[in-house]
């Protein structure tokens, strides 16, 4: 039975026993300290995400690195190390350089259009008008539709004979009839084919840009904008000198996502043209798929796919560096 003193603490004898006990029994184990427990709690929360990234991103990435330096093909369970042979082989292909060039054009042109359209749409959606919520819901439809469905619809709209776009242009008197020189063959003329693929990519993804920008715009305090107005700033000055700096981190993250989505967009080009006519719309993901999966050269396909990394790394570096600077 424990004796309790009037002051509320243990009896002096007990206190003495406690004091005379070895020091280590008083110290708590390191994991019991407040700081350690906070850290453990933090890491526990982080663990699922980290595990997810390691297993589903890190491991496949490392595996693709191995494939790229091996002679792996789909029918052979054993792969040998061949160094940079796959990269050299890709480097020597005409088609690879065409695909690289198309990828860059695809990325830059699509990014420009998505920025313009996304910004315009975001501003429109900021205005107050009847049915605003409905319109906000509708504009994300292209982004949420299954890609196969939407791209097949576009394929019909681009059909060489039954194109609804051409039908409208013809009835507007802008082009001649089917079979005439001015009848556009959207997926059959090299420049038009790439432009057609870019248009579908823009159509699919600019609502995403708009939503990202909209989220940024709504986070800008009205007082700041009002103050800028009082100071005599025009709309574009407010946008350039107030809004953009304040939503810069969001813009950067949006840009990063968009770059990754665009550069790895296999589906649109593959479903519309398979890279044709004559490689005119071939981009790196399509070439990597054709060589790696369809032709069975996993090693060379992986090497071609990895050429995307040098394209993505600068964007990633710039974005992260800018974000870090802003933090200070």
């Amino acid at each position, binding site marked *: 039975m424990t004796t309790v003193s009037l002051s509320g603490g243990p009896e002096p004898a007990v206190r003495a026993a406690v004091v005379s006990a070895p020091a280590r029994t008083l110290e708590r184990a390191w994991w019991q300290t407040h700081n350690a427990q906070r850290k453990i709690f933090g890491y526990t929360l982080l663990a699922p995400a980290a595990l997810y990234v390691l297993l589903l991103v890190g491991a496949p990435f490392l595996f693709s690195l191995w494939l790229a330096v091996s*002679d792996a*093909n*789909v*029918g*052979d*369970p054993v792969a040998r190390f061949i160094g940079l042979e796959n990269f050299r*082989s890709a480097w*020597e*292909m*005409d*088609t690879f350089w065409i695909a690289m060039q198309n990828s860059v054009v695809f990325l830059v042109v699509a990014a420009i259009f998505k920025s313009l359209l996304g910004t315009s749409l975001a501003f429109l959606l900021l205005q107050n008008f009847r049915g605003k919520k409905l319109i906000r819901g509708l504009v994300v439809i292209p982004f949420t539709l299954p890609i196969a469905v939407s791209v097949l619809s576009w*394929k019909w709209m*681009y*059909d*060489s*004979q*039954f194109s609804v776009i051409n039908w409208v242009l013809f009835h507007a008197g802008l082009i001649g009839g089917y*079979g005439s020189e001015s009848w556009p*063959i*959207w*997926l*059959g*003329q090299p420049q038009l*084919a790439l432009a057609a693929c870019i248009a579908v990519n823009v159509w699919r993804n600019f609502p995403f840009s708009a939503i990202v920008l909209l989220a940024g715009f709504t986070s800008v305090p009205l007082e700041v904008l009002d103050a800028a107005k009082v100071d005599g700033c025009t709309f574009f000055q407010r946008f350039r000198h107030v809004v953009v700096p304040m939503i810069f981190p969001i813009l950067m993250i949006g840009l990063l996502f968009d770059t990754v989505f665009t550069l790895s967009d296999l589906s649109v080009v593959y479903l519309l*043209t*398979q*890279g*044709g*006519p*004559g*490689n005119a719309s071939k981009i790196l993901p399509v070439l990597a798929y*054709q*060589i790696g*999966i*369809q*032709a*069975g*050269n*996993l090693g060379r396909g992986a090497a071609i796919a990895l050429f995307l990394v040098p394209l993505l790394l600068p964007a990633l570096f710039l974005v992260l560096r800018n974000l870090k600077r802003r933090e200070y």
Partner: protein
Amino acid sequence: MSDPRPVQTALSTLNRRKFLTVAGAGVAGGSLLTMLEARQAPAQIKGTTLRILQWSHFIPAYDAWYDKFAKEWGDKNGVKVRVDHIPHLELPARMAAEFAAGAGHDIIHNGSSILTRLYYKSLVDLSDTYDQIGKKHGGWIPAAKSLVEVEGRYYGLPIYHILLPMLWRKDLFDQAGLKAPDTWELARVAARTLKPKGHPTGMHFSQCADANLNWRSLLFSFGGAEADPSGDNILIDSKETRETMRFAKALFDEGMTPEVFSWDDASDNRFLASGVGCWIHDAISAYRTTEDTNPPVFQNTHIALEPAGPSGKRVSVAAANVWMVWKFAKNQQAAKEFLVHLMDNDREGVIQSRGYNMPYINDGYKKPMPVIGTDPKMQVLQDFPKIVAFFGYPGPFTTPIQEVVNLYVLPDMFTRVGRGQNIEDVMKWGMGEYRRIFSKHKRA
């Protein structure tokens, strides 16, 4: 009175080993006979599951029949059969995934892109089944074995192939006083004559399955080849190839519109069905589409034998379809028995596909063939087996050729010529691609 002594018989000399041998053979033979008589599979496949992966057929009714057919076979033999259909372009990726995982379907379908040589080390040797079916059905057509034979063994079963004959508008030809397109030259004259009247022709100057098939039919009929019969040496750089490219360029300039640069596998179907095209070189799905969508045009659409090249040679490159069984398949026995049963009902497959599926077995060509033999316009399809070829002709469908096909190198060569690039430059580019691919596989 009978002699009470036991009669001496041979049995007295039968030892235990002989008894077991004779009895075992008797039981096995008896079981086999019983099994054959009952037309049922042996008991060991009962209670198992058979998983089949196949393409979504261009004739949906065939898929409906096939699924029912597989289920009925399964019900009869106590096997649970599951058939998965996916688009044919996804088959190579799916096959790669199953190979990597070492698990998946028992039977796997290959369409157009036949991957036997790529995967044969992981496929069941079906030589016995191949021979058994051949003997039972009058042998295989000459081109069949090139698809599945590797080092003298057979690692797949050719099930059916799809022909791409000439589909031409007789009414338009007659109005212009043109002869039927029995040769490529006559086809060119027709295109040249009918294009100004609003009826051009079209062949795919694009990257699609039909482009790979059609340009090879033209090239081979002109006497050209991609590789020699061994499949090891490149033959694309030849005067025949140059002649074919010159012909293709003239055909394009005189008889086509630029829309052919955008064509996919279904575009020429629509082109014919719309009433615009004077002829196309395509599978009879185009003929069937026209039948369903534009009956007046269908009435005037006729089918011709593969046009002859300058020296009279006819080679029709067809889209092959082959079944394979994985070595890691859990139900190999049921897979083999189902495939034999399917081949025994090959005729029904022709009927259900409305004459789209062409047999690989000689008995399948006994005239009149179902559907094809009863339609006067389609009867000519019965004469194709001797001129049918597959990718790799005159050799096997090797892995380098498979890569050439999958990267659309040959259609790209024709596309470049069609766009006006110099033939020698195109040949240089094409040879570069062929050499790079062949040398890589040789090193491997």
